[in-house]
Structure formats: structure tokens, C-alpha cells
């Protein structure tokens, strides 16, 4: 049995209280929500925080709703809730497809959207999905709230712009008509982290040409989990197979995958292209209404 080192434990009653506790315990305190990354790391003693601040009781972070033309996702929304929400599925199939392949139902019942993004694992599925749809992240701190583009949120492996005294509170995703999205992942086994995965978001304009393109890539060393050159290439083009293949090729070239037991570099780069192509193809079919 793996046992963690000793730590203090506090249960936050509100976001304000959580911020107070963060200030009191300092930079060696950690927020715990689902705990699916932090607790195993503590048991392996890879993480030894002085204090855990439990935010699981904060109902104010568990909201999930469409507000005008924005999908608002509280940081404490569980994976299972995102997966079960029909509005999310209607507007953003990419989230449902990503959630279906994140871990297993037990983890999804407890793990949170905000926790996944803040953990900033370089193989995180949701980081790619939110990058593809160009979400904004809202971060609360002692001086009030600030909003950061998700593409500026991650600054490196296991690093985000959330400062030690701050809390990610919600994600805001713009809803636009005429868009389609998809997520495709290769894993060694169900529930595993991705060998590689790609998300795509396409909005078609007049004449069926691509008006907006969003790509998300994970586990392949894509900077900020996206591929801007491939996105730029797609604008103004009809989403035919050759175009989407070329976008995949450009995306693959922009990645810097690392070899590990999930696969060698050439394979992961190949997957980046292949999965980008597959995600784009499905997103395009959804955008033009030929696939649900």
C-alpha cells in the first residue's frame, strides 16, 4: 500500500475562503478537486504538499450552462457531467468524443474539467479539446478575476499561468452557427493516456469554404496544444480530402513528439497527421450537416 507523507487538510467553503486558505498556506499548498492526478502523485511521494485545500464542496464552481452565445463550464464540473450534458453534445461533439475516451467511468465521475486543465499534463485530452474551440479561462485571485485565452493558459509541461494564490473558476466557449467538431484518439488500451490525439473545430462560411479552423493536439509536443500553421492553411479552402490531408501534414510537422513506451517519434508524428486528418474530416462532415 502506498502512503503519502503527512499534510494539512482544509475544506474550503467558498471561492473567497479557498483564496484565503491559499494565501495562508503559501505556495506549497495545493487545491484538490477530483484528486485523480494529485493523490496518486502524493502516494508515490512525487508530490508532498504541505496542505490540501479541498474545493469539492464549492457549488459555485459546478455550473454548466449555455449563456447567450457562450457555453460556460465551471471548473469543478465533473467529466461525467460534461459527457452527460445534451447541450454540450449538440454544440460541441468534440467534448463528448474526448470525454468518452478519458480514463474510465469511475475517474470521470470524480475528475474535474478544471483539474484536468490545471494539471497541464502534456498528454491531457481536454487541453487539446479546449484549444481547438478557442475557449477562455477565467481565473480568480486575491485582486479579482482575469480572463486568459486557453491558448495562453499552458506555459509548459505541468505549468499554467494560474499563480499559487489563484483558482481557475470557469471555461467559456463561444458558440457559433455552422460549426462542426470532432475528437480522435489512439490509446494502447481503453482508459490509457493518448499515444496521440487530435481535436478539430471547423466553421464553414458562404460557398462551403472554411471560415474558421481550430485544431487541438495532445501528447505530440504541440505548442499550446494546437497547430496554428495548419489552421491558417485551412482558411478559405473547401474541406476536401486533399486539403485536410495537407493540413494534417502541416500539423504533424509542427509537432515535437517525444519517444516513450507509447511509441517512437516517427510514429507519433505520423499519428499527429493521420488523426488531424480524421478529426478534420469528421468535423467538416458535421459542419456541412452530412454527419451528426
Amino acid at each position, binding site marked *: 500500500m502506498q*502512503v503519502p507523507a503527512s499534510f494539512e487538510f482544509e475544506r474550503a467553503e467558498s471561492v473567497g475562503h479557498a483564496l484565503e486558505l491559499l494565501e495562508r498556506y503559501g505556495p506549497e499548498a495545493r487545491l484538490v478537486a477530483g484528486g485523480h492526478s494529485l493523490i496518486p502523485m502524493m502516494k508515490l511521494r512525487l508530490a508532498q504538499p504541505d496542505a490540501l485545500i479541498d474545493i469539492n464542496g464549492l457549488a459555485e464552481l459546478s455550473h454548466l450552462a449555455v449563456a447567450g452565445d457562450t457555453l460556460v463550464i465551471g471548473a469543478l464540473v465533473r467529466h461525467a457531467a460534461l459527457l452527460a450534458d445534451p447541450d454540450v453534445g449538440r454544440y460541441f461533439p468534440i467534448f463528448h468524443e474526448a470525454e468518452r475516451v478519458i480514463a474510465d467511468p469511475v475517474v470521470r465521475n470524480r475528475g474535474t474539467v478544471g483539474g484536468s486543465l490545471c494539471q497541464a499534463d502534456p498528454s491531457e485530452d481536454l487541453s487539446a479539446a479546449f484549444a481547438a474551440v478557442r475557449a477562455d479561462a477565467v481565473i480568480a485571485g486575491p485582486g479579482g478575476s482575469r480572463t486568459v485565452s486557453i491558448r495562453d493558459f499552458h506555459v509548459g509541461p505541468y505549468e499554467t499561468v494560474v499563480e499559487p494564490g489563484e483558482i481557475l473558476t470557469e471555461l467559456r466557449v463561444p458558440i457559433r452557427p455552422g460549426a462542426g467538431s470532432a475528437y480522435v484518439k489512439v490509446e494502447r*488500451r481503453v482508459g490509457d493516456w493518448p*499515444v496521440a490525439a487530435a481535436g478539430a473545430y471547423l466553421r464553414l462560411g458562404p460557398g462551403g469554404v472554411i471560415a474558421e479552423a481550430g485544431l487541438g493536439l495532445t501528447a505530440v509536443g504541440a505548442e499550446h496544444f494546437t497547430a496554428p500553421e495548419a489552421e491558417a492553411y485551412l482558411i478559405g479552402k473547401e474541406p476536401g480530402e486533399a486539403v485536410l490531408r495537407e493540413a494534417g501534414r502541416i500539423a504533424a510537422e509542427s509537432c515535437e513528439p517525444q519517444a516513450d513506451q*507509447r511509441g*517512437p517519434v516517427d510514429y507519433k508524428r505520423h499519428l499527429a497527421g493521420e488523426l488531424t486528418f480524421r478529426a478534420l474530416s469528421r468535423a467538416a462532415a458535421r459542419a456541412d450537416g452530412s454527419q451528426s
Partner: protein
Amino acid sequence: MSTPMGFGRMHRKEDARFIRGRGGYVDDVQLPGMLYGAVLRSPHAHAWIRSVDTAAAEAHPKVRAVITGATLAGLNLDWMPTLSADTQAVLATDKVRFQGQEVAFVVAEDRYSARDALELIDVDYEPLDPVIDARTALDEGAPVIRDDQEGRTDNRIFDWEAGDRAAADAVFARAEVTVSQDMLYPRVHPAPLETCGAVADFDKVTGKLTVWCPTQAPHAHRTLYAMVAGLPEHKIRVISPDIGGGFGGKVGIYPGYVCAIVGSIVTGRPVKWMEDRSENLMSTAFARDYHMRGEVAATRDGRIQAIRVKVLADHGAFNGTAQPSKFPAGFFHVFTGSYDIQAAHCEVTGVYTNKAPGGVAYACSFRITEAVYLVERMIDVLAAELGADPAELRMKNLLRPEQFPYTTPTGWEYDSGDYQKTLQLAMDMAGYDALRREQAEKRARGEPMGIGISFFTEAVGAGPRKHMDILGLGMADGAELRVHPTGKAVLRVSCQTQGQGHETTFAQIVAAELGISPDDVEVVHGDTDQTPFGLGTYGSRSTPVSGAATAMVARKVRERARQVASAMLEASPQDLEWSVGESGGAWTVAGTGASRTIQEIALAAHSNLELPDGVEGHLDATCVYNPPNLTYPFGAYICVVDVDPGTGQVKVRRFVAVDDCGNRINPMIVEGQVHGGLADGVGMALMQLMAFDEEGNHLGASFMDYLLPTALECPSWELGETVTPSPHHPIGAKGVGESATVGSPAAVVNAVIDALAPYGVRHADMPLTPAAVWRAIQGDPIRTDLAIT
């Protein structure tokens, strides 16, 4: 499901407690004053230990003892014998020889403090170059791992051969067709859900040592403790409670067990030690790790004439395999498989590497897993060379029923078999011809689909004591049966269930022999104070050996009942006939209705009934069963896969498994064991692996990295059976526990390679992860046992 009077489907008796969460495992043992142990392990694969400073740990307020190699050296316990007559460090004194090796043991008031104190121990290591790639272990100048052994200058453990080299070479020299293939059966781990651990309680007043431990072989453990620690054997009690999976990984004695015992002796209090998941994966017995080259000689029309194999066996840092003494490569020389092959030869070289010891674990039937994989892959390589259908090629070369009993070119005597019938049934169930047609259509569309066949013969139930022993202990099993006055029975056996359902199956054997309900038979096992001696449960030996002992002891009881019945009925014993009717077993005077049931006889046997001279009364009996031969279950497996060539992902679409394990005592339990083994096979073929980087870091030391298959990777198994009873086993049964693990990996791999045939792929090593499959398609296969770079 009603309870049959003997063989048949019935719910498992043990499930009543398991499904209520009321099983009792080692970690459930709580004793007054119990302390907790934790093991400090080496971060290096190979390093000198310059010093071990335990002062800070000893100063921890909740620490009660810190034990090091030096402490154990003072007790002459720093090294212990392995099951292969090698030695293994209990706690390292001179060098560490694999990452995760045991260096020190802390005993504290609670688990947390014990773990905290590990961080207070300061070990000064001087790293050495490790030997990680077994293929370099015998290179000139390779670091010598076992320099503790006097005079040792290399890493060779043994060279061993079987078969007739000259005869095989002669066939190869004039063969029309020969094929050769290198293949690796990678290092895998049984990964039982319950890790290893022990609770040791040494009573200084009585001198009695009680050890609770999830061992598959409690009696062997007791004897070894007696031999190693010098404790008198009658003062040692080993209790193996419910076990959360063993698969061979719980046969041996691990350093942590010895440390817990020493910890209890030193502190005078009970000590519990449970390893965590990473410790289990890093340090306890692995399986396989065979680098093999197979060669087959055949005629152009597909008659296999000879087979040769060279094996480089990676045994890790200590030779700790658990197998009969005469066979350093286990039963690998059964590699001629199920085929009529005139000549065969194998040579096996065992080497030390800087990896954990072990070798025989994970339901391998003493290396038959490796042998079956080798021969079944080679058949497909030959089929590809000849352009032959793999099913037809097998059908042509399988042994025929009239050849049994059959002696193989390497000396095995297969007791019984009807192989073609079994393969044909599997092909019929799968719809083999239709599958081949579908495959052709898909190939034309560029969609890879594969059909893989594996036909295996197992050799289980070790074994005849004149041939088979472990550290000198013969492999016969005892059984003891008591029948109470009211006709209820208690069976005591030496083997130990780890999920196989012995409490049900063995009760059914007694029930069938005595004509009583299995509900009226209690099976006692796993406690050396309560059970007769025997070597335990592994190698699918429980039913072949202890099951036979059970049937024989029940027959003894029945014969004793005959004597008592004859007194009751005032008839000659020879005139009595045994029958099992609806009301159960009874002795009846031939040709009359005069009859006494076994329950009536049991009561009379304990009563004041006057018995003839020489008849003792009571019905209890004991028996020791020394098997005359192994039993040879077999089966035909067919796997169907689809491969996504763009990603390398493999989907196992169907799996047909036809097993012939002789008479089935409880078909439901047999099928459950087959299901588990098939899932194992899918796991090993597609995802499970312990690889090591060049420093010797273990790259699969958690369930995030060491992947076990889930229901989503497994198709709905399609099972079939044929029944060819063992001619020498009292109830015609054969072992089945490992059949599916032995037989299934080759079927999955053969299916994947079959799917990749259009890309010119003839072989790729397990595990066939998406990356491995994609690289095989590119013609650039990866070495799966090393770090991917």
C-alpha cells in the same frame, strides 16, 4: 443453479463470502500490538553499496527497528536459497543487482511512519554499468553481476539441451524447405490484484512462529523456513488465507517475508509487511523473457520433419525460477507441440541480467507458454513460406488419435488426445471458410483482417516424484478426509486456491465419490497446521495431483464404509455393491433391497455397533498421491482481428476456444478459468510488457505503464469443448488453469501477423501495441523489451 451430487455446474461455495466483501486476506489480519514494515529499495540497477546509515531512521519516534543486510549477516540470513538452488540476497550487503532490490527494512508503529522513515536512511551507492539487454550478457567484458559467487567470470547460469541434435541436423541438411524466425517472448508480470505481503508473529514463550502469507505453496514455505532459518519445522505454522490472485507469482519466498519474520523476532511483536503496487511489479517474480530462434524443416507439401530451437533465457539477477530441479528451462522441451515431428532439438542458455529475479510465473505451466508460442508461430511462418493455409497445415501434421500414448522426440509421453476433432470443432464454430472469404474481400478493399490459430498441448500436474522435485521435495500431494457421525465430511488438502474454486471443485470430487451433496463437504486448505503435506498450487497441478488424492482418499473412505456396512447388514463385504441414487451413496447387498446409506454407515461407524476383527471404526482416511505421469490437456483456439493500418490499432473481434481438459468437474469454473486465461493472452499479445531503459530503470512499474486488458479489449469469448479423459487419472480429469494463458497469445499474434501479410510482415514481437504494429507495417519493427527511443 441447483447443487449436483458430484460433478456439474454449481455456484462456487467461496463466492458467498467474496461477493459480500467478506473474504479474508493477509492485509485483513490484525493482531494486538502489531507493527508495520516497509522495504527500502535500490534506485540503481547495479551499484556497490559503500555504506548504509540508519541513525536518523532509528531516531524516528515511532520506529521500533531498522534491519539492514549487516543485521541479517549477523544471523546468517543475508542470503537465502532460491527455488532453483541459487542464492538471493534478502537485504543487499555488497551490491545491489536490480532496480527495486531490497536494501533495508524499517519496522514502525504504523504504515505511515515506516514509510516516512525510509526517507531517513542514507545509502551511499557507487553505480556500476548494468547488464540490461540479455543479448549482451555474455559479451566479452560484460560486467559480472554475480561476483558474490566464487570464481565466477561471466553471467552464464546454465546451458541445457534436450532432444537429438544430430538427428535434427541430419533432417535439416536434406530438407526441401526450412524456415527460421527470431522471436521474443517478452518479460511480463502476473500482476495479481492482491500484492505480496506477510504477517509474522514469533512467540518467544512457545517458540512458535506463525506466518500469514498469500503463498500458493504453504507447506513448501514452512519446510524452507525451517531449513533456512533453523527453526524447528513443527514450531512453524504458515497460514495462507484468501489469495487475491497468484498466477505463479506467489510460489516463492520473497525477501520481505523473511524481513517480517526477523522483524517479529527482533521486536517481539507481530509485524505486517504489504508491498505496494510498484514494489510488486518491480521486484516479484516476472515471467517469460525468452529470446528464441526457431527453425523448422519440412517437405514442400507441408510435412513437418524437424524443429530446432535456440533460447537465450533472461533470468534476472538471481536464478529464482520455480520449477522441478531436473529442468532448468522448465518444461520448455515440450516445444514439438501437438505435431508428429520425427526430430527435435533445443538448447537453452540462461543468463544473469540486472533485472528482478523470477522466470516461472504467470500461468506458464513451467515454460510451456513459451514453447507453445514458439511452435505455433513457427507453423505460421512455415505456412507463409509454403503459401499454405495455416489450418490445413496444422491438420496435416497434428498427432492422430491412434498414436497415443505418444512419446515425443524430447521424451514426453502424451497420455491421450484426439486433436483433429478439436481443431475441426473450433473451425466449425468460427466458420473458418467464411472468415477466409471475408478476409479476401476485405484485403481487396485495403482493410486488414487476420485469422490466427493456435493448437496447444499442455503438460500439467507435476509430477511423478522420481522425475520431479523442488529443492529435493517430491511433488506428491496428501489428502485427508474425515466423515463426521452425521455423514458430513471435511476434506483437508495441501494445495491452495487463489481463485480457482477449490472449495467447490474438491467438495464435488468427494461428493461424487461418496454420493453426498457438495454442500456437506467442507474443504480445509492453506494452513500447515491443519493440512497434510503437499507442494501447492501452480503448474495447473491441483486437480491432476490433489484432485486425484481427493478421489483416492474418498475411495478409501468408501471401502471403510463397506466394512462397516457389512457388519450392519450382516453380509460379506464382497457381496455389497456401491451405488449412488437419488438419495445418495449407499452399499447394498447384491440382489436384495438391503441397503445402508453413507450417512447411516457414518453414524454406525461411530456408534456401539460391534465391528468385525480388524475393522477400526470411524471412516476417516488419508492418502498420498504420486502421479504416474503428467496429464496433457489440449485445445484449439482461433482469433479474428481487424487492424487499422493508419494507426496500427488492433481490435480482437472474435475468439473461439475449444478446450479438452478431460472430464470437467465443474464446467462453470473451467469456463471461468478459460475466460481469465484468454484475457491474459490478449493482454500479453497486445499490451503487457516490462521494458527497461539502458540504466536499468523499470518502465512498467505501475498500472499506468503496465497495462492489463479490460472487458473492452476482450470479445465475447466463444467456448467449446471436447472430452478426452486422462487414462491414468482417477477421475479422468486434466488440469486447465493455465491452458488458455498458454494457448491464446499465439492465436492473437498469429491473427495480427496474418492481417499484416499484405504488407510483407512475417513476424513482429509482442506486445503488438499500435506503435509496434505500425512500425511492423513500415518494415522497421521496434525492439519491444528495451526503451523506445
